[in-house]
């Protein structure tokens, strides 16, 4: 029972991290109908910006206080992400309004290639560290129930808590602020929203900035876990099954989907993997998502797809 629980908890927490990336996908898809393949590249880009600013600020300004440095780096990195959102809206998506989904998808794939290259040109392509003081030591729970207790990674635990807080924050933002209401209006119907005076361009910049914020948080957490390196942009590929499993348009879906994929992936790797030769995590997640989709084609919480002729 002990190892099982340990895998289960590990899976839940990894799932939370996937949810963070998946959230970025969902936010942009909801508000603009764009399936944003660049989310992974945004995570990498944001993490690179954060890591490098945290290095440059003490070097240039002589500020040594760690919290202050991290805070300033965070703000600067966020500024970069907002600029990026503006550039994307202005030069790419603004020109492609009302195009087919697949064309937009490929446009974001182009953005991915651009950002992977540009980010590494500007910020360098080595492996960088992000240190925001997440606790690293493993922790043992329930030691009196099981022999040896259950090993829980504190870093993942804090990441999961941050992710949960972020989701609550976003939910509140969407539900209770004027901007959030405008975002939801645009998500419902572009044209109707525009006709009552909601400026589409600005809304899209905001959405991409919010997605950039989510990418930054995800980048910091993933970056402090794995180090900031090119492979970070691959987390997007792990988040994709989460998005389709939860439904492209649903924020809770991204969370629940992330948990299901995280747990499924870890359990399969431990219990089925050895039979098949290991390394099945990546395609198993997709297969799992496929199975769910066969039952519910719009994902767990996605809007029901209604076909009209």
């Amino acid at each position, binding site marked *: 029972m002990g190892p099982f629980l340990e895998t289960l908890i590990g899976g839940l927490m990894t799932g939370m991290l996937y949810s963070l990336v998946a959230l970025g996908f969902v936010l942009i898809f909801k508000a603009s109908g764009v*399936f944003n393949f660049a989310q992974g590249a945004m995570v990498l880009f944001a993490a690179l910006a954060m890591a490098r600013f945290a290095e440059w600020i003490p070097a240039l300004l002589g500020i040594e206080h760690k919290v202050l440095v991290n805070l300033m780096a965070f703000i600067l990195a966020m500024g970069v992400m907002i600029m990026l959102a503006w550039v994307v809206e202005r030069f790419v998506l603004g020109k492609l309004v009302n195009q087919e*989904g697949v064309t937009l*998808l490929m446009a974001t794939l182009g953005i991915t290639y651009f950002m992977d290259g540009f980010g590494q040109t500007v910020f360098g392509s080595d492996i960088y560290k992000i240190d925001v003081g997440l606790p690293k030591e493993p922790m043992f729970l329930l030691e009196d129930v099981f022999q040896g207790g259950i090993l829980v990674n504190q870093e993942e635990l804090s990441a999961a808590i941050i992710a949960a807080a972020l989701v609550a924050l976003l939910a509140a933002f969407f539900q209770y602020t004027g901007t959030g209401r405008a975002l939801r209006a645009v998500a419902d119907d572009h044209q109707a929203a525009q006709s009552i005076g909601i400026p589409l361009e600005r809304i899209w910049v905001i959405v991409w900035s919010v997605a950039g914020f989510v990418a930054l948080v995800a980048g910091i957490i993933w970056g402090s876990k794995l180090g900031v390196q090119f492979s970070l942009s691959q987390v997007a*590929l792990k988040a994709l099954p989460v998005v389709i499993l939860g439904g492209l348009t649903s924020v809770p879906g991204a969370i629940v989907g992330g948990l299901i994929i995280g747990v499924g992936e870890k359990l399969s790797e431990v219990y089925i993997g050895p039979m098949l030769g290991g390394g099945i995590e990546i*395609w198993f997640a997709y297969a799992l998502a496929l199975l769910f*989709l066969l039952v519910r*084609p*719009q994902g767990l919480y996605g809007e029901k797809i209604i*076909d009209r002729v």
Partner: protein
Amino acid sequence: MLYRENGQFKTSYQADQQIFPIAQDRYLILALIAAAAIVVPFIASEYVFRALLIPFLILSLAALGLNILVGYCGQISLGTGGFMAVGAYAAYNLLVRIEGMPAVVAILLGGVFAMAFGVVFGIPSLRIKGLYLAVATLAAQFFCDWAFLRIKWLTNDSASGSVSVPELMVFGWNVDTPIDKYLFCLGFVVIFALLAKNLVRGHTGREWMAIRDMDVAAAVIGIRPVYAKLTAFAVSSFIVGVAGALWGFVHLGSWEPAAFNITRSFDLLFMVIIGGLGSIMGSFFRRGLYCDRAHRA
């Protein structure tokens, strides 16, 4: 288009229903094929063959296959690299394991295996649509990446995981110089392009387009979505599989699973989109725009 059909009167059904009903199209295509087969071998250098023309032809073929699925039938697929890998590895295994297997037959059978694989991964398309399907097809891609890396039997238990093909003999013709390889690929490409062109203008092609434009409406007027979608997956992955086998046999010679990774899928989808969806000839022109990739490939 610079020219029109005006003034070209057809006096028989046969003339009206040929593959290229407009005379200019017909002559242009014939001239193009003739130029590719006769003129190019004399003027191109070995480097141009190796680095540009051969990859150009093979990837055009793959793009053509993908275009049938995405452009004509409207089913977005990100698993093209996987289908190519199935074609390549199936052809390899057939060639290595069966004594006296002719290379052309192995390549075509590789396409058949890719077709079976494509149909299996096409089944979800009956329920899942649009972008959900696009992501779901990634399952095929990652499954292939994994299978060819981990299942040793598929790579003939080679220690390094990479496989290589002995020299290519086609009915006594040793395909080893770049010109031979080029002509070999050109033969495949011309035949498949004409077959595809023929297919999409007929009954099957029109069913695909009806499904693409609105599948519910198509079903209402009596087009079977199951049949139409699965034939699109079958034809598309057959061509993609053949292209994969050619990519491995002719272009690479020896390869490992990374040759067919997800970047390949994206590249192909790019090719299909850049030239606009739903055009057989476009598969070639757009591949031309995309030449720089060949250097890295």
